[in-house]
């Protein structure tokens, strides 16, 4: 445009395909030749996927146990109703039976029902800068954490916020009641969080030869916690502080009010758990701390095996199958319509 052309046609626009709107272009059109085959093809694909997924899902096992008031836990349930008993420990046991052995890796989840981790203010009530180990934020938590940013004495809370404060603090011990007596089911409690969470998102403040308690000196544990953050895992001192797996799992907020979170994975090193969980009776001993009665919630334990695409999930294959049927139906209807009314573009005549 910038250059001045000589001659009487100086102001004539350039004859470029772009300026004259003549760019080579593909103008597709929805004709029967393309649309109908596409529909059949889609239906077929969905059908195949659905069947395959369904078969895969069939091979998984899942067990859910609502232990809120199950077994001896009804006592603890009653006990937790009173806030003044909050500090008192309560241990109860729930019993269940596995009819068919769980083959392969078995995953142990705890589930909460009707617990809203997805409330806006709840989700905002955390300080990621604190949890990534920023020194400044450790002592002066973000205002988003209010009212869980400082305790009554004005000492900053670490980790601050409603999310950390409400951490699920039941613990479980699973036992297999074999013929030879009760065998404790070994659970791996590590590697249950995202890699990025464990290694990037949550970091302890740099220690510089200080012990973790020293680093966290001058901070208070969240109000509902019984233990300070640097003392969450008494067995493994590298699993303490902000990089505690249970804390990380809890801090990854659930999208829906009912959710399950990974508690542990079956350690398949020894018999009889090399192939998974054998069929039989099991008991789970629960250190019942987390009160759910305030918000009419439920607690449960979930045991499941996995396939390549995750745990037992019947919705996906069924959705695919239903979709495929619908597409097929539409395809057939379209074919009929086309054949009767619009074949060979007869409506295209003017």
């Amino acid at each position, binding site marked *: 445009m910038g250059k001045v052309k000589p001659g009487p046609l100086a*102001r004539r626009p350039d004859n470029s395909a772009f300026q004259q709107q003549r760019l080579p272009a593909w103008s597709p059109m929805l*004709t029967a030749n393309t649309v109908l085959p596409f529909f059949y093809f889609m239906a077929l694909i969905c059908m195949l996927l659905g069947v395959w997924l369904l078969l895969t899902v069939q091979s998984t096992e899942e067990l859910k146990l609502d232990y809120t008031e199950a077994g001896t836990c009804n006592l603890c349930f009653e006990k937790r109703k009173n806030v003044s008993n909050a500090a008192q420990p309560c241990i109860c046991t729930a019993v269940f039976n596995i009819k068919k052995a769980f083959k392969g890796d078995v995953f142990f989840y705890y589930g909460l029902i009707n617990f809203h981790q997805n409330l*806006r203010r709840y989700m905002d009530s955390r300080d990621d800068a604190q949890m990534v180990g920023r020194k400044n934020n450790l002592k002066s938590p973000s205002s988003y954490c209010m009212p869980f940013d400082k305790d009554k004495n004005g000492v900053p809370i670490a980790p601050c916020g409603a999310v950390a404060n409400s951490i699920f603090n039941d613990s479980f011990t699973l036992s297999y009641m074999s013929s030879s007596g009760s065998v404790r089911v070994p659970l791996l409690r590590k*590697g249950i969080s995202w890699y990025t969470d464990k290694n990037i998102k949550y970091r302890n403040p740099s220690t510089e030869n200080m012990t973790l308690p020293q680093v966290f000196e001058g901070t208070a544990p969240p109000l509902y916690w019984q233990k300070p953050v640097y003392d969450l895992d008494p067995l493994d001192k590298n699993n303490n502080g902000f990089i505690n797996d249970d804390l990380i799992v809890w801090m990854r907020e659930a999208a829906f009010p009912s959710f399950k979170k990974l508690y542990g994975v079956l350690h398949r090193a020894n018999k009889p758990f090399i192939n998974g969980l054998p069929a039989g009776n099991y008991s789970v001993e629960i250190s019942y701390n987390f009160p759910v009665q305030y918000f009419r919630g439920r607690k449960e334990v979930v045991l499941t095996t996995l396939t390549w695409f995750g745990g037992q999930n019947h919705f996906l294959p069924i959705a695919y199958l239903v979709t495929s049927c619908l597409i097929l139906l539409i395809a057939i209807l379209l074919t009929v319509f086309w054949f009767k009314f619009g074949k060979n573009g007869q409506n295209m005549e003017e």
Partner: protein
Amino acid sequence: MFRKRPPPEEERKVRANDREYNEKFQYASNCIMTSKYNIVTFLPVNLFEQFQEVANTYFLFLLILQLIPQISSLSWFTTIVPLALVLSITAVKDATDDYFRHKSDSQVNNRQSQVLIRGSLQNEKWMNVRVGDIIKLENNQFVAADLLLLSSSEPHGLCYIETAELDGESNMKVRQSVSVTSELGDQNNLASFDGEVVCEPPNNKLDRFCGTLYWRDKKYTLSNQNMLLRGCVLRNTEACYGLVIFAGPDTKLMQNSGRTKFKRTSIDRLMNTLVLWIFGFLVCMGVILAVGNAVWEREVGFLFQSYLPWDPPVDNFLFSAFLSFWSYVIILNTVVPISLYVSVEVIRLGHSYFINWDRQMFCSQCNTPAEARTTTLNEELGQVEYIFSDKTGTLTQNIMSFNKCSINGQTYGEASDPLGPQPKRLDFTPFNPLADPDFCFYDDTLLEAVKVGDTHTHKFFRLLSLCHTVMSEEKSEGELLYKAQSPDEGALVTAARNFGFVFRSRTPGTITTTEMGRSVTYTLLAILDFNNIRKRMSVIVRNSEGRICLYCKGADTVLLERLHPCNQELMNITSDHLNEYAADGLRTLALAYRDLSEDEWEAWSERHRSAAKAASCREDRLAATYEQIEQDMVLLGATAIEDKLQEGVPETIAVLSLANIKIWVLTGDKQETAVNIGYSCKMLTDDMTEVFIISGHTVQSVRQELRRARDRMIEMSRTRDGKEEGVEGCFMGNGFREGQGDSRGGEKQLQCPPPPPSNLMDNISGEFALVINGHSLAHALEADMETEFVSTACACKAVICCRVTPLQKAQVVEMIKKHKKAVTLAIGDGANDVSMIKSAHIGVGISGQEGIQAVLASDYSFSQFRFLQRLLLVHGRWSYLRMCRFLCYFFYKNFAFTMVHFWFGFYCGFSAQTVYDQYFITLYNIVYTSLPVLAMGIFDQDVPDQRSLEYPKLYEPGQLNLLFNKREFFICIAQGIYTSVVLFFVPCAILSDATQSTGVPLADYQTFAVTTATALVIVVSVQIALDTGFWTVINHVFVWGSLGLYFSIMLALQSQTLFGIFPNQFHFVGSAQSTLLQPVVWLTIALATAICIVPVLAFRFLKVDLKPQLSDTVRYTQLVRQKKRKPAGRSVGGAWRGVGSVSEGRLGARGSSRRSGYAFAHTEGFGELITSGKNMRLSSLAMATFASRHSSSWIDTLRRKKHSHTNTPPSASGESSPAPSCVSGSIPPLSNSSSVLCGSQDAPIEEETGAAPDTQTASTSSTQNPPAPAPASEAADGLAQTLNAGVLTPAALRSQGGDSPGGWTISLGAVQEALLRWKGRASASNSPVKLAE
């Protein structure tokens, strides 16, 4: 900038040549400023303007809401980033616009004009011209300011101006200076002129000026007759001097150009309504969610308080609900996307550029591309229903050409055979050296008849050469310039000139012509001037033999009544010819003469004298005397003048009317002219059922005429329908309803004047046309008659309004806008069209002509009327289509995007938690989804441009507003909501149970957010892919690019680096990596996409397959190529292409309607001017001085160069005194040589060569018989020689022909070139010898 505005003027005092005095009053300078900002004021003013937009204020309000922590559900930047983007894009656009305004201002302001400062002429920029300056204007220059004409080069201080710029009237006007100042003459006297003008303050009345000139203790009244207004062009006047009275913004031109109204398109208005609805919808959603929040907080949240206590100010659930309402307003605000308006602007800008770039709308003759001056109206171009067109300069070129004639029952100029070879254009030069080379005629039989000496033909052309009020100017020998007051007359006199009857000069009492090479002088006895009532003019002349003859030309209707009844047969034949001509849309005139005896003349002239002296009723008595003598005339023949249509006008009108666009012609011209043009551009045809003419002068008569027209229409269409009833069922229905309506209407008619039975009028079949006069229109536009007029006029195929004022033009447009709710387009070229251009939805200005007023007021401008079809049918249609598709998609994608939050509300306790990451919300509209839809909005095409011209019916969806209306909007919304349901519930159902292959649950919020966002982006991308009908490279790049951009930006935003810097802002770290590696996530996305798209695809397929639109059909045929080069489609374009601008291809049946008209754009009074001799040069002496003064002017030079091929090469030597005289004879050397070369056939002319110099030399010496005004310099030569014979040195002479050397070489070149053409007949070596003489 901040200068205090002086108080409004009471009166204006201007003293010439006295800047100090004038500066006291602080009059505006001649600098005009149309720009809005300067560098300092730009930012505040522009921001202020932008925040006056409701949308922008709304987003500002949202921004403030977001700053309240209890409410803020989104970070502040989700609003401020798009807002800043939008504001800056708009600001850049405004700045560019204003820059161009600055540029055009400075271009105008920097034009040069010659100002008389301290006695000498100095070049000054226009902006430096001050009130009170005296400036000099030269021919064809624009007047720089409103001037009081002081003196001019023409006698009596006359000067001619063209006011087309101002009022659109293309005929020339005369202005005259006050006599005292006209005597001042040259600049020395003017420099000492110190008169003072006291006049009215600046106003916008173009035709009025009152003031007084005080000079030398005398008062002179000034009127509009003395004024030259800014914007006028000086014509046919060498130069003139004027005193600046009003300058710059005070000029009448600027006072008239009011602030342009801001135009909005109907899509704009619809969009605004829809946006309001969406706001309503938003509030509803907010309320629903707030109620939900109240319930939830009361039932659940209340219990949940131990984990999440309410915010401090919240003490109950109701307050929480109130806050939640505002939080949701923030979240859901994306249903009214901030980028909507800016995207629309961008798309329109793109379309405007395509209009500017269109080579097919580029006029190579005038080097003018089309220009979209307003960038906001493009899609409205696709919805036009009514076009209001000016006539002169718009439909026509305002060039008259002598096309045909009928002489003594023989018609000439007939195009032989439209299919045969193009007839050759006649070359007049060998026959007649004085011929105008630009004249075109194709029938050589007429030339033969002239050469043979047919008396009738000779009489015919003699009449044409004598009976007129044209004035001639002969710059140099043989170079005649006619100053015709109307182009028709010019055309006739030029025709006579070319056929050997050359009108050369006139004095008040004589007319000198060259008849077949022989100079003849007639004594002019009387001019019986033209007026509207007489519709004819006559001259009475005495020829050299003493015979007196009356020559008359006039409208055939008038003239045929006054013929001698002896030759009835000739009258019949001529009458037939006239009909033929009229059917071709030519302007016809009948010619007649009458020989008068000396006694008759004496008797009549006595009566005439007494009538002329009469004190009372002079006009009437004169007319009566004229009437007496214009009797018993003998018919000579008829002429047909073509008012040259612009190229392609009939075709364009035909195509546009096929596109169901109604075209109204609104013209200031006479009824006859307008109707003629109506016929010639095929708006009116002879097949039309009836053409109604409304010309009543009173309210009653207009009402009656309208009513009669309506009754006729109903009657006629009923009879037509009756005939077709058996054939077509649909007509039966019409007929039935009409019958009913009519009977009811009939009853009502008895009681009160019936309201126009509109349902009846809608069903008129048959082609009617309405012609309405200005004075009738004035009544028809009155409030109570409007509806009646509209219903009548709109039932007609064509409507022509003639003699309308600019104001009425606007009123007509307003009326249609009001009553029809249709999109109107006004097209015109003159300042008289400005009002209608401004009031119509779309104003189009014809550029490239002289005037720029209309262009300045217009929204689009181009230089040819025919480009209108491309503008509307191609660009307009595409724009509309693209805009509609864009809007549909845009609303769809935002609903799909936003409504997901609504569904999530039910799961998250109505806590106003968003589904997506805040960055996704920020970027979704401005990055992830903006480009593909912009590309579609800018580049999409459903059918190629040729097809839309071939099938004008494709335009109809736009007029009916089918592509985007409330229904379509709801469909989009529904689709959007459906998509949002799918996008929320499918991932929700799948993910809530699913886990990663590592066992980690997928139901966490971040995974869900990423999955939903990805699914959304993919679904809307697939949808845009479906919507895009024209996949250019750009579309591909944008669609794929957007997807790629989405993933890369997401990965970047969730990367470790950003998290490391701002951990609280980028807490989604790692979600994308973790999520997108999961097969379940992809299965979810695929499923959601399939569920979203499949129904859409099915519906679209069914729609195309079962109920295809015309565009689908066209597309299909194109795709399948079943019928190659579809003959039916071609015929539309092809057949019309054959209808040339000339008369071949007569479509309408020839016959019945004769539309004769003395169709002159003529005003009376020129005859008087001539006979008074006012406009004649008084003495040769004056001319000599004039000539010497001006011979060096560049215009002269230019002209000489231009005409050098007929011009004398200045003989550059004083010694050869015969040369000038020889030259001033009728045969210039070039022609001379050529006539020598082919002398054998041009014998008579050869003889004349000798005779002509005699008259010439004789005339120079005798002042009593003034010379044929040979071009001034030549006359000066002659004069100088006679007066100072021998004294004059050759050098002095040479200096007079200022351009000699250059002129010489150029003309020599031209001569040689011309000679080469004669190669073969004579050797080229001949001529240099001759020239050297």
